């Protein structure tokens, strides 16, 4: 019998606990259990990047619920709908429980020994013939810190391949890039605590109300209390977040830099800069001033469609507020000029001197729960401990730590970014691609291309996952992985707060933790250090954590003051945690010294427009020496713009009830019922123009593919359509519906994050009674989907989606 403190499907954010800027955020404990637990095990939520502390309720060896942790600084007991429901996925009947090997075209059950033996045999053969440049890893933002670090070490010092990146490339690469550009290193300057006291919050391309529901609750509680903050929202859709905005700017997609330059222009015009701060703690202001001079509100209106008067209102707030917290997410990161735009938000804080002070901070958000650790640990295109790949001293530190020759560690250019890893696989120079806890067959851009790559005869694909995802279907070997609550580990949220999440139950069948899989691989590959000792000297999560601590010593993300025991005391702790800061650090840069010194910085920087790397010599010649770096950017038009053939903009995004490709959320009945299917959202004006009614089937086509979705009308600007990206084919292969069938293969020059936020499309009413699909593009798309699902449900093309669509079972709108 389920008991819950609220119905979070209809009441997403729960009851208000109002407070003013001088009072602490009150505790409110949220809970949902299906039975009374026998015991509670300390965990942390993994259903978004917020990192809410919780306890996992266990009964008879199964998870029976979760309860927010009232003492945790991150959530003070609160949990969102995804966290309250998704734990049921652990006990799904379709969990992978045995390794699978493709034999005669079919995936068949195998032993761990056979599966790992085959991967090792392939790895060795490829490395021998083509060097380790033939091996690539595409990992996740959803493993634990200990797993990333182990993977990073075995990749960099074991195999010595530069080809390792995470799906974090699709979600948070720009956060890291923008922080590096402005401050010299990754690491969010602010803390969530700054929201409790700030006078103004600005959300740029960040629908926080849907994406980080608990963090939004923190803001709602301020809005309901005395002296509420002003809220500025920049988003082309009228989202749940925008509904609460003091000023909502709705720019055309791809025009973030124009709008932000306009805001910088207005602040400078108002004489609201902090000259003393600029002079003492920054470089590059003069160039910014010159660049933004022409971005008058009228000019910005021409470029972005944002009315000049609205921009002025936002500019007035930003010029006069005494404190400011900004948050930035995919609307910036996955759009044109991603890094350049994210950096302009940093610049707003720098020119006003609103950083490193209570109530002022920047949250360059992450999308996934453990994305920060992918970055910290070097399991993506960064080196462990925020080290600089082009600083020989930093490489020497790692070589010493791992006891390997310096030249073992690939550092001749930046670690290969994910889009390039896929390109090498496409061209055939990467011959083994090992994919972990991510689902590129739904989440990468231009899915037709991704399916072709995964099917290549000369590419050996390993997929390590908990479920038979759309991607796993293409694997040569599938490794069944244990997930959250089935293993212990730590991870770090956007507020730099490190949490522990403990093993509460056994994994199903023979599933193993990702850490155990990596340790097994390292042992079978016989990776050694230069004294002939095993390269990986740890054997379980806690010993991996201790090894990681050594790697962070003296770096910005210093973990040396943390232990598992400390993390079990009832709250996460924000890094750096060391002898100087034993209880952690709520806010970075309170001394206004930034990690830009040449010998300390994580990067020597890039040209924001081309991505060209700045050389060590050039950087040292103008060593910012602890000052923050202000970099300006001119607006540039997106690469693909609507034309006669494809007259509308498409943008893609997320919904409150789902996470990623619904691998977990789609297995919770309540979440799935609340948001059962994809849709295409369009304005009333466009609906009238095309003769489209609510719920009609719509064919959406781009130059790369097509989807068929039901129409949802309203809350979006004319000329723009929106499709949520969560929906693939594992639970509904009847029609092409994944938004990424349409998206573009291209990326930001600095962060290398792909552009999911714009594509030119055309729409037409799809008369399902026309029965079988037309030859050509549509036929090919349906064929591709059928092929994808072959051996599973055989669904005649063009038939099942003629049935009435599933209606969302929620009182909330699902496009918010």
């Amino acid at each position: 019998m389920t008991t819950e403190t609220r119905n979070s499907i209809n009441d997403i954010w729960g009851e208000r606990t109002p407070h003013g800027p001088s009072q602490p955020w009150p505790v409110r404990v949220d809970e949902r259990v299906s039975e009374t637990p026998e015991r509670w095990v300390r965990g942390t939520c993994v259903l978004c990047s917020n990192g809410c502390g919780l306890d996992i309720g266990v009964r008879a060896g199964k998870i029976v619920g979760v309860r927010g942790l009232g003492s945790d600084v991150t959530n003070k007991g609160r949990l969102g709908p995804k966290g309250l429901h998704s734990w049921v996925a652990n006990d799904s009947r379709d969990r992978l429980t045995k390794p699978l090997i493709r034999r005669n075209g079919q995936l068949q059950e195998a032993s761990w020994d056979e599966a790992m033996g085959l991967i090792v045999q392939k790895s060795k053969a490829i490395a021998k013939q083509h060097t380790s440049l033939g091996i690539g890893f595409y990992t996740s933002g959803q493993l634990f810190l200990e797993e990333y670090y182990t993977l990073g070490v075995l990749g960099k010092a074991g195999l010595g391949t530069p080809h390792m990146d995470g799906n974090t490339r699709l979600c948070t690469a720009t956060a890291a890039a923008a922080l590096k550009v402005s401050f010299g290193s990754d690491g969010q300057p602010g803390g969530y605590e700054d929201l409790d006291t700030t006078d103004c919050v600005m959300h740029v391309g960040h629908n926080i109300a849907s994406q980080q529901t608990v963090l939004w609750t923190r803001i709602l509680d301020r809005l309901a209390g005395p002296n509420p903050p002003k809220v500025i929202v920049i988003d082309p859709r009228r989202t749940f977040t925008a509904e609460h905005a003091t000023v909502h700017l709705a720019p055309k997609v791809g025009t973030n830099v124009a709008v932000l330059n306009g805001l910088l222009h207005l602040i400078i015009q108002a004489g609201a800069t902090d000259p003393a701060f600029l002079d003492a703690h920054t470089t590059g202001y003069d160039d910014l001033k010159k660049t933004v001079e022409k971005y008058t509100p009228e000019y910005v209106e021409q470029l972005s469609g944002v009315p000049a008067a609205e921009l002025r209102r936002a500019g007035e707030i930003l010029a006069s507020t005494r404190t400011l917290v900004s948050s930035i997410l995919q609307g910036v990161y996955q759009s044109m000029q991603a890094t350049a735009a994210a950096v302009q938000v940093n610049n707003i804080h720098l020119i006003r001197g609103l950083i490193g002070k209570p109530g002022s901070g920047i949250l360059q958000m992450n999308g996934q729960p453990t994305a920060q650790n992918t970055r910290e640990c070097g399991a993506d295109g960064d080196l462990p401990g925020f080290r600089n790949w082009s600083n020989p001293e930093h490489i020497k530190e790692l070589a010493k730590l791992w006891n390997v020759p310096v030249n073992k560690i690939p550092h001749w250019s930046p670690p290969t970014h994910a889009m390039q890893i896929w390109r090498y696989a496409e061209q055939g120079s990467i011959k083994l691609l090992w994919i972990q806890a991510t689902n590129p067959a739904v989440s990468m851009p231009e899915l037709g291309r991704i399916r072709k790559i995964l099917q290549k005869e000369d590419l050996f694909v390993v997929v390590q996952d908990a479920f038979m995802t759309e991607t796993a279907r293409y694997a040569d070997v599938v490794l069944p992985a244990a997930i959250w609550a089935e293993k212990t580990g730590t991870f770090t949220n956007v507020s730099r707060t490190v949490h522990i999440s403990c093993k509460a139950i056994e994994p199903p069948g023979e599933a193993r933790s990702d850490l155990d899989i990596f340790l097994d691989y390292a042992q079978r590959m016989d990776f050694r250090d230069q004294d002939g000792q095993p390269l990986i000297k740890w054997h379980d999560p806690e010993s991996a954590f201790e090894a990681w601590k050594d790697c962070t010593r003296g770096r910005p993300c210093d973990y040396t003051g943390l232990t598992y025991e400390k993390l079990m005391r009832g709250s996460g702790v924000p890094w750096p945690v060391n002898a100087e800061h034993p209880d952690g650090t709520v806010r970075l840069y309170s001394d206004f010294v930034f990690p830009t010194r040449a010998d300390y910085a994580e990067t020597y920087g890039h040209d924001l427009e081309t991505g060209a790397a700045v050389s060590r010599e050039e950087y040292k010649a103008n060593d910012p020496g602890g000052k923050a770096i202000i970099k300006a950017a001119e607006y540039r038009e997106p690469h693909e713009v609507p034309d006669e053939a494809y007259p509308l903009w498409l943008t893609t995004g997320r919904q409150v009830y789902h996470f990623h490709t619904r691998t977990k959320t789609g297995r919770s009945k309540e979440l799935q019922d609340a948001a059962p299917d994809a849709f295409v959202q369009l304005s009333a004006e466009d609906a009238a123009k095309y003769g489209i009614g609510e719920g009609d089937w719509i064919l959406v086509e781009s130059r790369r593919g097509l989807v068929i979705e039901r129409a949802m009308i309203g809350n979006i600007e004319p000329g723009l359509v929106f499709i949520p990206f969560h929906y693939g084919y594992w639970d509904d292969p009847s029609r092409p519906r994944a938004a990424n069938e349409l998206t573009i293969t291209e990326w930001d020059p600095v962060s290398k994050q792909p552009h999911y936020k714009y594509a030119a499309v055309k729409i037409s009413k799809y008369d399902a009674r026309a029965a079988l699909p037309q030859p050509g593009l549509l036929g090919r798309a349906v064929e591709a989907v059928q092929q994808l699902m072959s051996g599973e449900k055989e669904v005649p093309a063009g038939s099942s989606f003629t049935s009435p669509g599933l209606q969302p079972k929620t009182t909330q709108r699902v496009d918010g």
Partner: protein
Amino acid sequence: MHVGNYLGLVQGSERRLVDALNKVAGQHGDEPDVFETCQLLRSWSNKHLEYLEPLVRKYGENRDPEPSNLETALFHGPRQGSLALLRDLHDVWLLTQQVQLCWTVLEQAAQALRDEELERVCQECGKETKRQTAFFLTRIKQAAPQSLVAS
């Protein structure tokens, strides 16, 4: 007076750079970063050509009948095959260096002539040419190991 000749040389070199950037973008459209960035860099070179026009007119009248073999072909692409991208980028890098050297030479002359306009154009364009070179160097360094070792 050979300034006109050198202006002709940089003009020709920029034109060939524009042509090469077009061809590389066209040939390597499956490398989206190369495709997009070549188009951006081409727009810079086109802008340089606009700046050059009045200067070429100004100094063209005094142009010496110097043989036109100042110019040499640097770009031999676009190519096909597994080394194609690297070798095409290699050529374009050389072309940008050729342009850069022209700006340096002309800037020296501009100072001697006290021609502030020519000096300004050389400096402004030279900055962008340097950014063009830097892009190709970064991209070449990335492509080299995979092209030479694993392809």
